[in-house]
């Protein structure tokens, strides 16, 4: 397209700020109100349809309407509440509806230290969420155990139990940092990058299926064969 052809419609759009009204004028006559006309409309052409792929559309929808699980664990949950509340207001970004039930939630923010007694419960809550589901790890404890990493009871990062999409570092992260983390997650979702599959070292398994080592033998009287158990192998953790 050369510059000697100023009559090209696209070139007209570049050069002028006024909407070009040729198509409309020929259809409904001159002098109509052009309040709703715009350059963007012009660029799309006169058709009222937007063409896109359905999965792309769904990703866009998901990214803009995320229901968060109302899930408070430890210190970070205070900053998470501030992120939901006045001033920071996560709702502005299309991600601020806290749902108390995991059955209605898309995103789980893990705000705090995971200890051995809570690990299986968190796995249960994660399993109860419908797919597609996403997890934001908030704070150092969900990355590595944070300041409590050397504790006898502390799981060294939430990633030992459930897959995590976005890590937000900090102890605790500021609300702005959490907003940024969630914006990043939305960006990923819009681009169609779903939950990465990671190797989960601690799966819930039936007690009866465990190899019969010393610990299992010792607990055999206390635990039912069908009970689900989680094994914490502190020595092999990072």
């Amino acid at each position, binding site marked *: 397209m050369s510059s000697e052809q100023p009559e090209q419609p696209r070139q007209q759009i570049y050069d002028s700020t006024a909407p070009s009204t040729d198509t409309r004028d020929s259809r409904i006559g001159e002098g109509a109100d052009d309040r709703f006309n715009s350059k963007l409309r012009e660029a799309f052409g006169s058709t009222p349809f937007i063409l896109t792929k359905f999965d792309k559309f769904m990703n866009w929808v998901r990214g803009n309407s995320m229901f968060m699980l109302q899930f408070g*664990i430890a210190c970070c949950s205070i*900053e998470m509440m501030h992120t939901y509340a006045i001033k920071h207001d996560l709702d502005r970004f299309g991600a601020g509806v806290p749902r108390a039930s995991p059955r209605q939630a898309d995103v789980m923010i893990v705000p705090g230290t995971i200890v051995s007694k809570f690990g299986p419960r968190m796995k249960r809550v994660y399993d109860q969420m419908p797919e597609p589901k996403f997890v934001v790890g908030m704070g150092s404890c969900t990355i590595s155990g944070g300041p409590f990493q050397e504790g006898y*009871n502390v799981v060294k990062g939430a990633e030992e139990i459930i897959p995590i999409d976005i890590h937000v570092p900090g102890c605790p992260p500021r609300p702005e940092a959490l907003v940024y983390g969630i914006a990043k997650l939305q960006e990923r979702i819009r681009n169609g990058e779903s939950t990465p599959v990671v190797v989960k070292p601690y799966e819930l398994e039936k007690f009866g299926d465990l190899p019969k080592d010393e*610990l299992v033998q010792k607990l055999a009287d206390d635990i039912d064969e069908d009970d689900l*158990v*989680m094994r914490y192998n502190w020595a092999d953790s990072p």
Partner: protein
Amino acid sequence: MSTGLERQPAVEVTEDELEAIVGDRALARDDHLNAPGFVIRPDDVQDVLKDLRDEAGFDHLANLTAQEYPDRYESIYHLRKYADPTQEVSVVVPTTTDEPVSQTAEPVFRTADWHEREAFDLVGIDYEGHPDPRRILLPETWQGHPLSRDYDQEKPQLVTLTEHANPIQPDHHDDESDTMFLNIGPHHPATHGVLHIETVLDGETVVDVDPDIGYLHRCEEQMCQQGTYRHQIMPYPDRWDYVSAGLLNEWAYARVAEDLADIDVPEYAQVIRTMGAELSRIASHMLALATFALDVYGDFTAIFQYGMRDREVVQDILEDLTGQRLMFNYFRLGGVAWDLPEPREEFIEKTRDFLDGLPAKVDEYNDLLTANEIFQIRTHDTGILEPEVAKQYGCTGPVARGSGIDYDLRRDDPYGYYENLEWDVVTKDGCDNYSRVLVRMQEVEESAKIIEQCLDLLEDWPEDERTVQSNVPRTLKPDADTEIYRAVEGAKGELGIYIRADGTDKPGRFKIRSPCFHNLSALPEMAEGEYIPDMIASLGSLDIVLGEVDR
């Protein structure tokens, strides 16, 4: 805010009288820095504690510390008086390593129930005659006792995820009445964190409540025992009561370590500490009010957001002062980290602006909350906690003051700059959920008074006398076998710490006395026989923080 409750002066008990009361049962003396200590036989526990309670008036079992020495186990009962907490006595109960069995103190002090379960769980002492000898913080299937000397942290552990069995007691279950078992939590919006409440319901009435804690047991005591006194311990207190009450918690550690190592704090630093601590208290009480409204009305839109709005302002002020919004790490042994931010006038003006706006906000809360008829119907005369019961459970803070117990360590066991300031202790004798909310609301106003006076002092403080830290040796090594228990008035009540020094630069034993732990243990007393929504309201009015309950 005077309440008209007259405070009874406590009878002073001298050491000679104490010796006479304990008498022959004392095997030896083992004095702590804060209190005389008596060593007794493990089968005399109930007798001695009962005599000390009834004859000498030690009606507050503040703490129970369990620890293991190379040659023995030891349980220390820290007793003090509600009427005068400066009067203290420690009862030391050694047991052998082969057979660590000691008599339970539960019949004398109800609060010993949970304490002895914790001592069994973490250290491994058995208490004979204990009504409910289970683990409390760690899972039932845990192997070993993590704070005992021969514990191997590398060993694998198994944790079960069982469906909870229906614990319907035969005496609750007959042909007419049909009870139902309900799990509340550990993931539930009304539990303020990860708390699991096993509830048995008869219709809508609560028959039995059993709080199951330990879902946030992050080994705080182990972490503190691994850190050096000077700098490595101070960040952890921030994370016990994490509802931005950090400075209050830091003061608990600062106070105990300063008394242990005999460190002076400059007066100027004390004023800054007092101001910061009261700002933290306001932030903490604001959250308590906000979440209480959420619990009783499900009011996420108005009061909760108002509470958060005001907390944001306080957090901004504290951020200017300390550099962090939530985990301040601002206190140092012997003072604070740095002076007020420059320009000082701007900081003082900003804080004054907040205080000037506060009365209008408190009026707004009163309109929305305490003057609201629905709120009154929901909270008045529910969750009754009688003062005698509260004392049995070791309740402190706004929970005790809402039951008419006039107990506030800021006044009764003075520290910081509180003695020199004009303020009142708020007490209410309604004993119900409503009183506890009122106490918190009025404490916000009292805290504002204290901050106002501190600001006046700071503004006029001569420029060449603004010492924020005294000289403290780089490495602190308190003498071996010095033991001390000290407490401060945290946002939730008496936050105490016991430290035994072992001659190194790290504590030999570090035990945290958490007010929420005691307050929560009184929940069954408040909730049984009430409707289930009232139980949720009672839980909200206790204002627990699970980080502090589980530590």
